[in-house]
C-alpha cells in the first residue's frame, strides 16, 4: 500500500492544497483530487479503495480517476516522495 515518505507532508490551508518536501524546501501546489489521493496514501488504504473514494467524492468515472491517480503516483514514486510498503 502506498505511503507518503517521512520527509514530505501535505496541507490544506485557507486557500490552497500544498505539498511540502521538508528536506529540500520545495513546495508544490496540488489540486483537490491530488490532495485527496495523497491524504489516502497512509500505508493502510489500498489503491482500489483510494480509487473508489475518488470516484464517489468527485463524481468521476473509474477511467478518469485511474488516469489522475496513475499520473500522480508515477511522478511521486520517481521522486521517492511516496513508496509502496508491501
Amino acid at each position, binding site marked *: 500500500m502506498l505511503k507518503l515518505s517521512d520527509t514530505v507532508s501535505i496541507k490544506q490551508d485557507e486557500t490552497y492544497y500544498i505539498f511540502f518536501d521538508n528536506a529540500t524546501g520545495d*513546495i508544490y501546489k496540488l489540486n483537490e483530487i491530488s490532495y485527496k489521493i495523497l491524504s489516502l496514501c497512509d500505508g493502510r488504504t489500498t489503491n482500489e479503495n483510494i480509487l473508489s473514494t475518488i470516484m464517489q467524492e468527485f463524481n468521476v468515472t473509474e477511467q478518469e480517476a485511474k488516469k489522475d491517480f496513475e499520473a500522480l503516483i508515477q511522478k511521486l514514486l520517481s521522486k521517492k516522495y511516496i513508496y509502496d510498503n508491501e
Partner: protein
Amino acid sequence: MDAYNNKKTDNEFYVQWHFIDSCNLRCKHCYQNGYNNKNIDFDILNAIFKKLDEAMAKWNMKCYVSLTGGEPFLKPEGLFYLIDLIENSDNFKNIAVLTNGTLINDELIEKLKTYKKLSEIQVSLDGHDEKTHDAIRGDGAFLKTVSAVAMLKNSGIKTVLMFTLHKKNAASASKMPELAASLDIDALTVERMTTMNDKEKEEFFIEAKDLKKIYFDVYEKSKIEFKNRNTKLSTSRPLWNLIDENAGGYCPIGLSSLCIMHDGTLLPCRRLFLPLGNILTDGLFKIWYNSDILWNLRKRSGKNECAGCSHSDRCGGCKAISYYYNHDLNSKDPQCWI
C-alpha cells in the same frame, strides 16, 4: 502538481536570533529565565546559519537579522563570527544588533563600522532618567547606556532606542521623545511589555484606557521634539494605527518572521514562548511547513473582533499579548481601546 512559490524576490524575512542567553544585567521585566554564561559553540552558530541561508535561497527571500542575547556584546567573538557569515551571504540583507548598551566601547564600535550590512544598533532604554531606568535595569546602567548611545551616534552608526513600556515606567514614556531628541538618535520605539503570567500582569500590565493616553502623549510629544530633526518615532507595530491611521503594522509571526534561541529552539516571537521545534534537529523547512502553531497564526478568517475591524489590515493586535492574556492567539489585543 505545479512547482509553487508565492514568495516574491523582494520579500524580506525577519529573524531575531538570541545567539547567547548570558547577560550582565538582570532586568525586572526580562523575558528570559536562565542566564548560563557558557562559551560560544561556533559549530552550533554555523549550523544554524547554514539552515537559514539555505531557506532564504530556496524562498528567494532576503533575511533581515537582529542579533541579540542575553547581551550580545558579552560574547563579541560570537557576535562578530555571525556578522562575518551574514556579511558574506547574498541571502542576507541587513543586520541589527539589539543591546543593553552597557558593554559598548570604542574598539567594538570601530569593528562594527567595517560592516556594510550593519544597518542599526538598537539600545534598550527603559526610562528617561537614571532613577526610572536603573530601578529596572540595575544601578549605574543608565549612565553607561546613555554614554554608549552618544559614542555610537558620534561614530555615525544608526542608533535607535527601544523603550519597553509597562506600569513601572509608564510615567517616563512621554518624556522619552525629549531624551531621544537630546541624544540625536535616529529612531525611538515605544513597545509594550508582554506580561506572561498573573504575577507579571499584576505588576506590569497597563490597562487599555491608560495605554491610549500614553500612546497619544508619546505621539504628540514626538511631533514637537522631532520637528526639524532626523529622529523618528517608530509606529509600525499593532495599535499605533489607532493614533495615526497611516501607522501600525500587522504582526508578522507565522508569515515572515521567526525567533531563534541560542540552542536552536525556534519560537514564533521572543515574547511568545511556544517552542515550534529545533532548527538543528528538525530543520527549518519541516517546522515552517508543518507547525500547527504557525498554521494557527496564519489564519486570517477568524471570527474574533479584529476580523470585522477596519484596522485589521495594519493591526490585528499583538499575538503574544493576546495569547498570554486571553489564552487565544487570535483573540483581540487586550490593550486595544476601541
